[in-house]
């Protein structure tokens, strides 16, 4: 009965620990979403700069992008944590430290995705905006970006998962995120498998939710460009007509067909 007792004890500890784990998980979700929001803003600004014909915008953007892509996330985390205070910028909360490090690192990767998708919008579209004398901000906002958006979502979805995974390291600067609470659970129970079962599965499920959310965004963006079905058509359990024949060319399915590309 020893073994059973032990299991029962584990289970009770786990039960007592539940709220803490949940709080940690919520913090990880927040860290990921706020970090991703910052990364997205940085990616769009740097990506537009890097894709601009003006050398004074493109040059600095390239340097910043390569710098933050080339040095490592952990190095940047330590910079924000240890070095920024020396410049008089002490960040009180480790949440902010984490958000900034995740934001600049994945923002730099995202900038490459933004820039690449801007240049992937067909040259005919760019030429049509010249023929209609549109100003640069106008053509970017109304014509080019809405089309580039559909192209960049898959890369951004990959980066979002990378960012979630990267967020697990932020606990070392003192953030009580999900990974930290898992570690606490290990300490009191010596149940390392908490990591393996609860930890990995929770991270995995959250990553799945994120990628499927991005997939829906992509379907919507493509539909707005006249490609593929609407989200409603995809989610409808019994399509009135076969989607493939209703929308020749592309039939994205919600599950499956994921191809995570590289971030490098």
């Amino acid at each position, binding site marked *: 009965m020893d073994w059973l007792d032990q299991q029962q004890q584990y289970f009770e500890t786990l039960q007592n620990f539940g709220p803490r784990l949940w709080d940690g998980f919520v913090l990880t979700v927040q860290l990921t979403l706020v970090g991703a929001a910052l990364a997205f803003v940085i990616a769009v600004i740097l990506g537009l700069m890097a894709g601009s014909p003006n050398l004074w915008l493109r040059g600095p953007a390239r340097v910043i992008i390569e710098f933050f*892509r080339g040095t490592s996330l952990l190095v940047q985390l330590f910079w924000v944590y*240890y070095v920024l205070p020396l410049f008089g910028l002490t960040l009180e909360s480790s949440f902010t430290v984490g958000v900034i490090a995740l934001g600049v690192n994945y923002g730099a990767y995202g900038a490459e995705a933004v820039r690449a998708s801007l240049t992937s919008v067909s040259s005919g579209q760019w030429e049509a905006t010249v023929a209609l004398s549109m100003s640069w901000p106008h053509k970017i906002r109304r014509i080019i970006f809405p089309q580039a958006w559909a192209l960049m979502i898959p890369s951004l979805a990959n980066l979002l998962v990378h960012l979630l995974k990267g967020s697990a*390291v932020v606990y070392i600067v003192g953030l009580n995120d999900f990974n930290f609470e898992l570690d606490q659970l290990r300490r009191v129970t010596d149940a*390392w498998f908490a990591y393996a079962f609860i930890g*990995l599965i929770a991270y995995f499920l959250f990553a799945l939710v994120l990628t499927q959310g991005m997939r829906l965004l992509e379907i919507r963006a493509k539909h707005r460009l006249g490609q593929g079905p609407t989200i409603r058509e995809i989610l409808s359990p019994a399509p009135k007509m076969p989607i493939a024949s209703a929308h020749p060319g592309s039939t994205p399915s919600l599950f499956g067909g994921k191809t995570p590309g590289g971030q*490098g």
Partner: protein
Amino acid sequence: MITLTPLLTAQPAGDSSGPIWNWEFAVEIFPEILTAFIQVTLLVTVVGTIIAAILGLVIAILIRVLPTPLALIVRWAANFIRMTPIVVQLLVLYYGFTWMDPLLIGFIVFGIHYATYMSEVYRAGIESVPKGQWEATKALSMSAGRTWRRVVIPQALRSTIPSLGNYAISMFKDTPFLFVISVAEMVRVAQTIGAQTFRYTEAITIAGLIFLAASYPTALLINRLEKRLAYAN
């Protein structure tokens, strides 16, 4: 074994005396950081890449040749590993297999994690081999093993090299995650120097610049290779 206290020392609050950057100190600590870079960071990257490149190909082939339910299991297992944090994976093995050397854990985790990425690259490469090639091997009654070895893999491999290289660079920049299982890789060494001397700026910056100096030229080289391959096709 060492029990790890992952929480760091407090931020340097009072120690703002002296210049922010001290060249003498930077020169003094540089060799130690560079040694850690060569002995651990590069080692993990090289061994991890070799494991990932081989295992990735195995996964890609398994997904292709196994019957559907088994292939699906392999595929979702790969998805699972790919979509969960390396940091947590390192900690799972670290506390689960306490007899294992942390460096060995690093090889295994980085190798397997990136194998799941590389398998996708191989999959795309295998799919890009024209159907006619498969049909030709059938027409010549070649065995399955021979078909893969002599026809499919050589053709699939060519176009995959740049992507594999990019993942090797990604892995390289992920190696500091070994920090959490107290492997003395470059960033940990830099952080330790900082903690001992209360001078973080030089150590952390040197580590960052070494990363940049190693990864940027490699990325350029891979980019050029990619263009040349695209041009050759």
